[in-house]
């Protein structure tokens, strides 16, 4: 049971979506890279679309449904994370952001993350560095240097140039994953003793 868990959060809206296509190629490349180093892994892919109602409900009620709680726990427990958002109005999509709005803001601390996005044209590619990277910096995750952006043409005439970017980013994710990720203290298991609270 030394499998590394790679969680994939992808926020495409259609079936199949180009975000999911990219997500699958990234997670396969990361798994390949790990197996090349003799490390077994498993991939859990989360389609945010499937939890769209649960996410809204969580924002309104303050707690996740049982189904949503399970995927939030998967992401929290993962050794590494791959995220893919479509580009909407010059940023990640609202649905993508909702997932990270309801996730505990400490859940990604110290976790290697591969940033990826899709869009209609190459002209949006800086969404990776101007929208996704600051979000994951705020969450204290460790985004790897290479992000992967795929435009429509990357699925056709430019497919050959997408492949090396995927391999590069997956390699960086695996390298980062081999460092220890810090574990979070459980405030219910180890509450701050009251004398410490009293003494401020």
């Amino acid at each position, binding site marked *: 049971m030394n499998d590394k868990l790679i969680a994939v959060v992808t926020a495409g809206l259609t079936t199949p979506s180009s975000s999911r296509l990219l997500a699958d190629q990234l997670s396969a490349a990361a798994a390949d890279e790990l197996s090349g180093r003799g490390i077994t892994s498993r991939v859990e892919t989360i389609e945010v679309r499937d939890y769209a109602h649960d996410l809204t*409900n969580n924002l*309104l009620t303050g*707690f996740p449904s049982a189904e949503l709680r399970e995927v939030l726990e998967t992401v929290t427990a993962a050794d590494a994370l791959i995220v893919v958002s479509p580009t909407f109005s010059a940023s990640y999509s609202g649905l993508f952001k909702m997932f990270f709005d309801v996730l505990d803001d400490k859940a990604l601390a110290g976790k290697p993350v591969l940033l990826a996005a899709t869009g209609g044209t190459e002209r949006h590619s800086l969404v990776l560095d101007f929208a996704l990277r600051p979000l994951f910096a705020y969450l204290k995750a460790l985004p790897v240097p290479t992000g992967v952006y795929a435009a429509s043409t990357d699925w056709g005439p430019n497919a050959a140039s997408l492949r090396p970017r995927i391999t590069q980013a997956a390699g960086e994710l695996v390298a980062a994953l081999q460092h220890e990720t810090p574990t979070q203290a459980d405030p*219910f298991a180890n509450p*701050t003793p*009251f004398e410490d609270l009293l003494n401020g």
Partner: protein
Amino acid sequence: MQFGVFTVGDVTENPTTGTTVSEGERIKSMVAIALKAEEVGLDVFAQGEHHNPPFVPSSPTTQLGFIAAQTSKIILSTSTTLITTNDPVKIAEDYAMLQHLADGRVDLMMGRGNTGPVYPWFGQDIRNGIALAVENYALLRRLWREDVVDWEGKFRTPLQGFTSTPRPLDDVPPFVWHGSIRSPEIAEQAAYYGDGFFHNNIFWPISHTKQMIELYRRRFEHYGHGAADQAIVGLGGQIFMRKNSQDAVREFRPYFDNAPVYGHGPSLEDFSRETPLTVGSPQQVIERTLSFREHFGDYQRQLFLMDHAGLPLKTVLEQLDILGEEVVPVLRKEFAALKPAHVPDAPTHASLKAAAERARELETIE
């Protein structure tokens, strides 16, 4: 075991008629609910404290005093008293006063409040919420237990030779519950003092509530107040009943769908599955409420939220009749049969007074 109702005192539009009661009507309806609660044999009436619309109860002891004058048995409590933004000196005075007027039928539930803007109105900062709850409550305890207090802290003007008046009735301070939904520090505080811990679980899944209550019980034992299963636990609940469960669902759904807290979110069915909300027959409410014990252990106080989401007073009073006549008598019997002898009841003025007298007698003997 104690059964009762708690109200937050919101003024909410009735979504089925589009009408909204006035503040005055709402205040009087809270009184009517309290009187009804006593009439149908409930043990506790608790009311919230808020300082912003759409809520009316900014002055709980005025209202509870008015209710005390018209009742003789029911315990008057709060849900909650803002230990963060109120001056602990004023809390000590107000509730000792109420205790005298109500012949000891008073306890309190401390809470921090849930809206950021309230803090600056009272010169505080929500980021200090926990620290305020800790310091203010430590002072409050001393004011009720020591005749003359010298005190200096971070958040309030120092006190020199201060005596809070009136002194608590029979020198027995009101019992205190600490209410918190998600702060382990407050469960820890309740455990440290051996006070009660109330989890207002009405909007929360069981897994979460369980985590908080288990922490409180474990730390209660750690601090030497008794075994974990002797800790004093209170829970919320939210119900709507009709003889036929389908009628209950049909009648309550528009209120649910438009309620301020969860309206326009999950379906009534999903929310009922995740939280203690029970909409159905009295028998379904009995079964659901009994199941709380299986998750959280034997507990001492069960409060129901009956009057929110714009439900008309007439409906709320009908609900209280059903609660008092058909539900609580069965719950009393069933819970009592299941409760082991070593698990205590919630402290009351009478039991705390008797305990204080026993302690004094022991001292005299020694």
